[in-house]
């Protein structure tokens, strides 16, 4: 729900367990309580996409029978699986460009236990027209961090279980150019294009590739996007918002003419769906001009990266609680 500061404070004072997203100026005014939060001024509400520093997006986690918040850094982030309840769900928020977020992005696909513990969340961000810094908040202590991750571990009743999903409006043509990388990295110089080694930045510039389109890898039918952050002709580098991995085949996404319509088409099957949390990517919000456009039944923060077990880009992620 999209609420004002007074309403958010009331929910906290009522002892509700909350996940909150809002601008830093609002989060700094919240009292201590059972909540975690991350910074963003961008949201897709039930009424549509909006940039706001006056309201907070609040998810009440009413399914919880127990909870705990834990703050992590790069050295202990994968303790998240040990700290998770045996039957639960973990909400994880990490600040954009923090060491812990970069480390998680690269290592999560190799974590033995991560898929055994539903972990959903996002990368917190900031108003792109300012030079602000992304932050996360632990409501129990009231502390905020720009260099640490915060998790809200939720224990579910025995007769319920958490299920995570993603909606990726992008697609690939398997016959398109195949791109492979030699190492796991957030920044590359060289790659293999259809098996031939090239300077990736030269390849993108010479072929006029639209860098608003993500690279996509197929993880057993799950299409995982990697968004391009920047291309430097001078340094011959291409930087990404999530890592590319050696041994995976990537293709550039097929162009999309209307993001809102693409979401609308994909959301037809979710009519009676009741997610307890969802978020969508700031690149979808900006490139897709989602201002005033809703994506029912999904509403939530617009984020600088999405987490559904692993770090994702340009993707809507959601969690639901289902009966066993």
């Amino acid at each position: 729900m999209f609420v004002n500061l007074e309403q958010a404070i009331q929910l906290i004072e009522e002892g509700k367990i909350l996940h909150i997203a809002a601008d830093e100026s609002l989060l700094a005014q919240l009292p201590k309580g059972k909540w975690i939060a991350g910074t963003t001024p961008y949201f897709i509400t039930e009424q549509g996409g909006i940039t706001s520093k006056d309201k907070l997006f609040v998810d009440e986690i009413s399914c919880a029978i127990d909870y705990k918040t834990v703050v992590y850094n790069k050295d202990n982030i994968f303790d998240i699986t040990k700290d998770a309840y045996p039957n639960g769900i973990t909400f994880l928020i990490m600040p954009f460009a923090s060491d812990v977020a970069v480390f998680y992005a690269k290592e999560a696909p190799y974590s033995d236990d991560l898929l055994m513990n539903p972990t959903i969340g996002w990368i917190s961000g900031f108003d792109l027209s300012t030079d602000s810094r992304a932050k996360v908040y632990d409501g129990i202590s009231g502390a905020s961090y720009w260099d640490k991750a915060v998790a809200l571990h939720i224990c579910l009743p025995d007769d319920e279980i958490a299920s995570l999903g993603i909606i990726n409006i992008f697609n690939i043509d398997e016959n398109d150019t195949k791109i492979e990388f030699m190492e796991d990295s957030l920044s590359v110089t060289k790659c293999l294009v259809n098996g031939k080694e090239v300077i990736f930045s030269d390849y993108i510039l010479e072929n006029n590739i639209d860098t608003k389109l993500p690279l996509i890898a197929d993880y057993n039918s799950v299409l995982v996007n990697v968004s391009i952050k920047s291309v430097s002709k001078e340094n011959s580098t291409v930087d990404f918002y999530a890592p590319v991995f050696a041994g995976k085949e990537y293709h550039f996404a097929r162009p999309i003419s209307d993001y809102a319509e693409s979401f609308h088409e994909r959301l037809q099957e979710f009519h009676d769906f009741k997610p307890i949390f969802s978020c969508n990517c700031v690149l979808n919000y900006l490139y897709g001009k989602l201002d005033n456009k809703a994506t029912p039944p999904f509403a939530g923060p617009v984020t600088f990266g999405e987490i559904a077990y692993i770090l994702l880009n340009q993707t809507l992620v959601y969690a639901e609680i289902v009966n066993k």
Partner: protein
Amino acid sequence: MEELNSKFEKLIKKQAKYESSVLGLNLLISRLQKKYAANQTPEELKNCLQEMESFLKKYNSIVKKDIEALKNL
């Protein structure tokens, strides 16, 4: 669940393909295929099979359809 091990083995060795509607199961299949491809030993295969079995046991209620479909792989 043990009767499914031969099916899981085919999946992990990429000798068969199965696409689930469950995000976690698809990511697990992809991860185990990559893990086994990097170390094709009986011990690694055993580890992968155990991991698959643990996942399906824990999430039995949301992968029931998958388990039935995997029997016919």
